């Protein structure tokens, strides 16, 4: 049975300038696997991820034929039920550690907050769990990091802290929204291998959102390509080089390669028809 099933998801924003449809009829199933969602900015990939956690504020509206997470109807669940799911069952790693961590709260306090508030864990136990989580993301001196403020950490460290934070309650589903786009290539590789390891050892489901198709291809099992709020193509990562849709090919080819030709990079062909 699949962990998550989404049927005909639509996200709309009723703004002054009219109704904006950010996601228009997206359906997918997710087992305990790594699913990539790729697209340009504005393609609705982040909104799809946030909808699963129902983290969209008014005037945004989520509609769908059905959204099931491990047998729970998350479309019609009450806010209390959703709160119980967020964290222990499904979690999201946000894009930028600079903006997603509380700047005036020590890392340790942020890591322990959930445990103390939700699970009423004792202080000592919460501390031990937080340290264990930092170790899991390969932070070498966790005691120091626990005492630091977010601005004292580098980008890669901050990103690992956010991953650690999401892993403490041991969720079944992790949604990672561009977890590496703010990082250097070498640090990127580390964060990815940490995520990969966690998916394998803990048997989590992972939704990996990114604009970098090549990165997603080498990391995920399956890739959904989104364009203007719709899925234009679904491919197995290993077949990505043979993707059929021109938009997918465009995304694949617009990145420069080492030793490639110096000629102009192929621009992305944006055909309005694909959006229908």
């Amino acid at each position, binding site marked *: 049975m699949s962990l998550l099933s989404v049927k005909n998801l639509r996200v709309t924003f009723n703004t002054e300038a009219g109704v904006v449809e950010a996601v228009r009829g997206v359906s997918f199933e997710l087992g305990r696997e790594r699913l990539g969602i790729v697209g340009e900015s504005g393609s609705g990939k982040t909104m799809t991820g946030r909808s699963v956690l129902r983290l969209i504020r008014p005037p945004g509206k989520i509609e769908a034929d059905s959204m099931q997470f491990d047998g729970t109807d998350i479309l019609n669940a009450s806010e209390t039920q959703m709160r119980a799911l967020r964290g222990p069952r499904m979690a999201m790693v946000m894009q930028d550690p600079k903006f997603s961590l509380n700047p005036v709260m020590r890392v340790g306090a942020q890591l322990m907050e959930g445990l103390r508030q939700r699970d009423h864990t004792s202080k000592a136990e919460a501390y031990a769990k937080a340290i264990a989580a930092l170790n899991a993301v*390969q932070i*070498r001196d966790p005691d120091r990091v626990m005492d630091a403020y977010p*601005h004292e*950490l580098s980008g*890669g460290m901050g990103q690992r802290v956010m991953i650690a934070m999401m892993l403490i309650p041991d969720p079944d589903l992790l949604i990672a929204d561009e977890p590496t786009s703010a990082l250097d*290539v070498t640090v990127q590789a580390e964060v990815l291998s940490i995520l990969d390891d966690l998916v394998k050892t803990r048997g989590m489901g992972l939704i990996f959102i990114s604009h*970098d198709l090549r990165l997603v291809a080498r990391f995920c099992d399956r890739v959904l390509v989104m364009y203007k709020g719709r899925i234009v193509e679904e491919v197995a990562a290993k077949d990505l080089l043979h993707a059929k849709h021109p938009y997918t090919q465009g995304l694949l080819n*617009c990145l420069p390669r080492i030793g490639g030709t110096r000629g102009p990079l192929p621009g992305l062909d944006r055909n309005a028809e694909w959006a229908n």
Partner: protein
Amino acid sequence: MGELMALIEVENLSVTFSANSRQVRAVENVSLTVGERESFGLVGESGSGKSTILRAICGLAPISEGSIRIKGEPVKTPRGKAFSALVQMVFQDPYASLHPRHTIDRTLSEPLAIHGIPDTDKRVMAALTDVGLPTSFRFRYPHQLSGGQRQRVAIARALMLKPAILLLDEPTSALDASVQAETLNLLSRLRDERGLTFLMVSHDLAVIDHMCDRILVMQNGRAVEELSRETLASAQMTTEYARSLFTASADRMLEGGTPHSFAPEYPEGGRESETLDPHPRQVRAQDRFEADFNPTQP
């Protein structure tokens, strides 16, 4: 560089910042020369000092040792108008580098006003067209543009005084892959049309390779290895660090035939110790932190 005249010469440059009586050496003894119409790339992780070199050239970072010469002339402090007319910089983040309360028109006409260049109207329109923006954008504010459009404005601004040298500090790292391609194409076109010389910084080896003739790999403020395009393409780098950067580059792994078995291939011992070492900024933060909170500790 032989037949080409060296336009930018950086010799044994060191940049040291002192904060709270502590010395931080951001750049240590780096030398490089860039010939006319050449494109030179600086690549390395954050904290490797690559951006600091660009900032030192522009006078935004102090030169503590060594010298910088542009067209054979040592740079003056302050840099002055003649320097601005010759060297311009494009910054990394187009969300931060444009004045949020100035219209595009004002941003673009300011350099003209400072340098007393006439025909503002015509030049602003031409600049917008040159970077592929509709002239109707002229009276918009930065927040009304997308990231890619903003970076185009930043490039247009840098080109207003028709400089010969463009310093590019991670010009595409804040942009989507597709927008990055458009921006790189724009830069290549402008370089060909105007005979520009580029000194470009990026952490993305593939971007640097696409744009530059020669590449300097940097780590912790020092030059590690200089590579030509050919050396890079055929993976003939001699230092471990340059190789680890090359291997970590996304594109290599997809072409490697095993897109699925994800494993960062660091050289034996090469990256491992460095990986887990705290970032220099963190070390500084920790020292500061300890000094502040445990003043009595030995």
